[in-house]
């Protein structure tokens, strides 16, 4: 509806300016020939706006004032100045943009879904699905992550001496918050590689992984002094992915 109205208005405007003869009309459409517009005020117009100015002009003429109503000089100056400044500004911007795009191109901030996430559709499992529990069993029985693949990836992270998987990896939901899902013992561990490894592992498992990293010395010290953390892990259900320490 709105579009239609706007379009109609536009058509009317174009027709009106077309009636105002060639170049003047065209200029007016561009919004430049303000002055001339008032000069040619005699042209008929359906809206009656123009006629009003005409009478106004006549009145002014009678009062001794020539020509169409001018803006006060100060105002005019301001307007002009503003326009010029604006033009320079945009040009400058354009020039700068060519030279260093990074500097001046005003980037729209990436739309982060902070408050916007409310409007996004969200999804959840429907427990009324006819095979819901069967599927759930199937998935919970399946291995969360492939062992061989994990070992390969882990070896790429650094010189891993020992890697013990527990918790999520062996389908045991540990209520004990002390227990980590993954204990990595090794030297020269690349933090970034470790992070990407963990991210992919989390993607595979579908849960957050609680992990612990320590170097060999620390682990052996903890092992020697029967550290509770290590003992609980080794006594509980676990799987050794990599074992180069002979434990």
């Amino acid at each position: 509806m709105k579009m239609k109205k706007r379009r109609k208005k536009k058509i009317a405007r174009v027709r009106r300016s077309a009636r105002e003869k060639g170049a003047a009309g065209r200029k007016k459409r561009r919004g430049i020939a303000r002055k001339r517009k008032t000069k040619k005020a005699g042209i008929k117009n359906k809206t009656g706006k123009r006629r009003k100015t005409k009478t106004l002009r006549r009145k002014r003429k009678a009062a001794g004032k020539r020509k169409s109503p001018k803006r006060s000089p100060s105002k005019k100056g301001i307007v002009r100045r503003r326009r010029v400044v604006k033009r320079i500004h945009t040009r400058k911007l354009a020039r700068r943009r060519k030279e260093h795009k990074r500097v001046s191109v005003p980037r729209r901030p990436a739309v982060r879904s902070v408050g916007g996430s409310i409007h996004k559709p969200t999804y959840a499992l429907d427990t009324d699905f006819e095979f819901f529990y069967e599927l759930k069993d199937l998935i919970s029985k399946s291995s969360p992550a492939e062992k061989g693949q994990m070992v390969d990836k882990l070896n790429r992270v650094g010189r891993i001496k020992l890697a013990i998987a527990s918790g999520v990896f062996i389908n045991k939901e540990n209520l004990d918050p002390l227990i980590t899902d993954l204990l990595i013992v090794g030297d020269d561990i690349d933090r970034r590689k470790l992070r990407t490894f963990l991210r992919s592992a989390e993607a595979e498992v579908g849960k957050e992984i609680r992990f612990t990293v320590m170097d060999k010395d620390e682990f052996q010290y903890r092992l020697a002094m029967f550290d509770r953390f290590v003992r609980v892990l080794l006594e509980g259900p676990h799987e050794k992915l990599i074992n180069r320490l002979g434990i």
Partner: protein
Amino acid sequence: MSKGTLELLFDSKARVKMLKFLFRNIGAVFSVEDISRRIQERPPVVRREIRRLLEVGLLKQKAK
């Protein structure tokens, strides 16, 4: 279980990852972006899988 059984059975790694993710986080509600980030798959892939699961009835849409 031997390796990749579910992947072979379900014909799509993304789908298996998504199912694993969803079933290990039962009761939680996720947007496409959440799932995409967590399972490390691109949003269009996730969207496609979501559409399928919605069709089947395993998923339900929570909020618009």
